[in-house]
C-alpha cells in the first residue's frame, strides 16, 4: 500500500518540476495515508469485536495477545527466539546471494552454464518445500543447518532468475564502448555488468526475503529447530493461541522494520544515480 503510494508519486514526478509537483500532491497523499490508517483501525475494531464472540483459544482479543507478547519479552524468550530465527534466515539469505549472484551472472552471460544449471533450477523451483524439509531431516536432522539448507534451496531459484534476467538485459552498447577502450573481462564485469544488475538484484532480494521468512518459519515449525516457527508449533500444542497471534504480529513488525530500516536505505544508496534530483 505505502509502496504503491510511493511508486505513483515517483511516476508522476517529471523532471525539473517534480519537487513542486510533489508538494501539490501532498494533500492527496495525506488523504490516502488517512485512508490507510482508517483501514488499520477498521481491522483492529473487527478484531476487538470478533474476539468477544470467540473464546481465547480461537480468537483472543488484543489484550491477551499483548500480555503474551510482554510476558515473552520479559522472560527473554522473544529476543532469544527472534535471534535464532533471524540467524537462520539471514545466514540462508546471505548464502543465497553469495551463490545466486555469481551464478546468475554466469548463466546470463554464458549459454553453456545456463544449460548446465537449468535442470537444478527447475528442480528447486518445482519440488515441494515439504519434500525438501523431509530430505533435510533425513540428511542432517533437526539442526539449524537443516533449516538453513531448506531455505537456501527454496530461495535460490527466485533470486537467481532475477539476476539472470538482469544480466541478459545489459546494454550491449556499453560493453562495446568498454571494449573499444580495451577494457578486459574483469573490468567489464565490475564496471558494467554488476552495476547493470543492481535493480534486478534489489527486486530479487525483496522477493527472496519474503520467501526466506516463510520457509525459515515453516522449517523451524516442522523440524523442531529453535526459533519462531518452533514456538508457534509449541504454542498450538498447548492451545496457547495468544502466543501464536503475538508471534504472527511480531513477524509482521520485523518485516516492516527490515523493509524501512535496511532495505530502503540500501536501495536508495544503490540506485542514487537513478533518482531524478536537481
Amino acid at each position: 500500500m505505502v509502496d504503491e503510494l510511493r511508486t505513483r508519486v515517483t511516476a508522476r514526478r517529471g523532471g525539473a518540476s517534480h519537487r513542486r509537483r510533489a508538494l501539490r500532491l501532498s494533500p492527496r497523499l495525506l488523504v490516502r495515508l488517512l485512508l490507510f490508517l482508517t483501514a488499520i483501525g477498521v481491522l483492529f475494531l473487527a478484531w476487538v469485536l470478533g474476539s468477544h464472540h470467540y473464546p481465547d483459544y480461537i480468537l483472543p482479543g488484543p489484550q491477551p495477545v499483548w500480555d503474551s507478547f510482554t510476558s515473552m519479552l520479559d522472560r527473554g524468550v522473544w529476543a532469544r527466539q527472534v535471534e535464532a530465527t533471524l540467524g537462520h534466515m539471514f545466514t540462508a539469505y546471505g548464502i543465497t546471494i553469495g551463490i545466486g549472484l555469481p551464478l546468475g551472472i554466469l548463466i546470463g552471460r554464458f549459454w553453456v552454464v545456463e544449460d548446465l544449471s537449468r535442470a537444478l533450477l527447475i528442480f528447486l523451483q518445482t519440488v515441494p518445500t515439504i519434500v525438501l524439509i523431509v530430505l533435510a531431516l533425513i540428511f542432517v536432522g533437526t539442526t539449524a543447518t537443516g533449516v538453513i539448507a531448506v531455505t537456501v534451496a527454496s530461495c535460490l531459484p527466485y533470486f537467481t532468475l532475477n539476476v539472470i534476467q538482469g544480466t541478459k538485459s545489459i546494454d550491449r552498447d556499453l560493453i562495446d564502448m568498454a571494449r573499444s577502450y580495451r577494457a578486459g573481462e574483469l573490468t567489464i564485469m565490475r564496471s558494467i555488468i554488476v552495476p547493470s544488475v543492481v535493480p534486478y538484484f534489489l527486486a530479487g532480494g525483496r522477493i527472496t526475503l519474503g520467501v526466506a521468512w516463510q520457509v525459515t518459519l515453516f522449517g523451524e515449525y516442522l523440524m523442531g529447530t529453535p526459533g519462531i516457527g518452533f514456538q508457534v508449533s509449541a504454542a498450538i500444542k498447548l492451545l496457547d493461541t495468544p502466543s501464536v497471534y503475538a508471534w504472527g504480529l511480531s513477524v509482521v513488525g520485523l518485516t516492516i522494520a527490515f523493509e524501512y530500516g535496511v532495505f530502503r536505505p540500501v536501495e536508495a544508496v544503490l540506485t542514487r544515480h537513478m533518482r531524478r534530483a536537481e
Partner: protein
Amino acid sequence: MSALIELEGVVKQFPGDTEPVLAGISLEVGRGELVALIGPSGCGKSTVLNILAGLIRVTSGTLRINDRDARVSYVFQRPRLLPWRKVRRNVEFSLEQADVTGAARRRAAEAAIERVNLTGHEDKYPHQLSGGMQQRVALARGLAIEPSVLLLDEPFGALDALTRSYMQEELLGIVRGTGTTALLVTHDIDEALLLADRVLVMSSRPGRIKHELRVPFGTERSLDALLQDPEYGRIRSELRHLLRPEVVEELNG
C-alpha cells in the same frame, strides 16, 4: 611517412548474411588527417569503425594502425555513458583502461572536461544532463586519453541542428589543435565538408568506396565562411549527386 591507418581489401560478412557488408574496402588515413566516410545508412560505414576499434574481425583483407602505442578513442552516435557514474568518473573510464592513475588521471579528466566546456558539471549523473551535454561527456572521455586515432560515428547525429553545428566547430578546433588523426562516419554532407580534409563516398550495400574528394577549404574553417564560398555549393551538389543513386538503391533494396 606512411599513413597511420591502412585498410586493404577489407571484406566483412556477418555469419548468416547472403552478401558482405563491406566488399573490399581500401583506405588510408595520414597522421593528423581528418577523413570523412560518407554514405547512405546501412552501407557499412560504422562497420569500418567497429573493425578499427577491434570490436569485430575482418572476414578477409588487412588492417594496420602504424603506431605501436596508438591510443584509439571511439565516440559513438549515442553517448554510451555509464548511468551509475558521475561525469568525472565517466570521463575517467577511458583513462582507467589506459592505466592512467591517481592525480594524473584526475588532472587529465578535468582538462578534458574543460575542453568540452563542461566544467562545473563534474559531479552530475548523466541523466541530469541534456543530450548535447551527454555527448560532450562522451567526447571528453574520448579526448582524455589524448588519442592518436579518434573514431567518430555520427557523433552529433542525435543532436538538434544548432547544438550540432556548435559542437562540430568545437570538435574541429580540438582535433586541429592536438593534431589528432580522425576518421569520421557521417551521412551529413555539410558535416563532412566542414570537418574533413578528404571525403570518401561509400556505395550502398555491399559497401565499397566509390569516390574520393579532397576538400579544398584549408584547415581554418567555419560554417559561416563556407556558406559564402561558391566552391562550397559546387562541391556540395557534386556530393549530393554521388550519393543520390546510393540512397535510392538502399531504399529500394
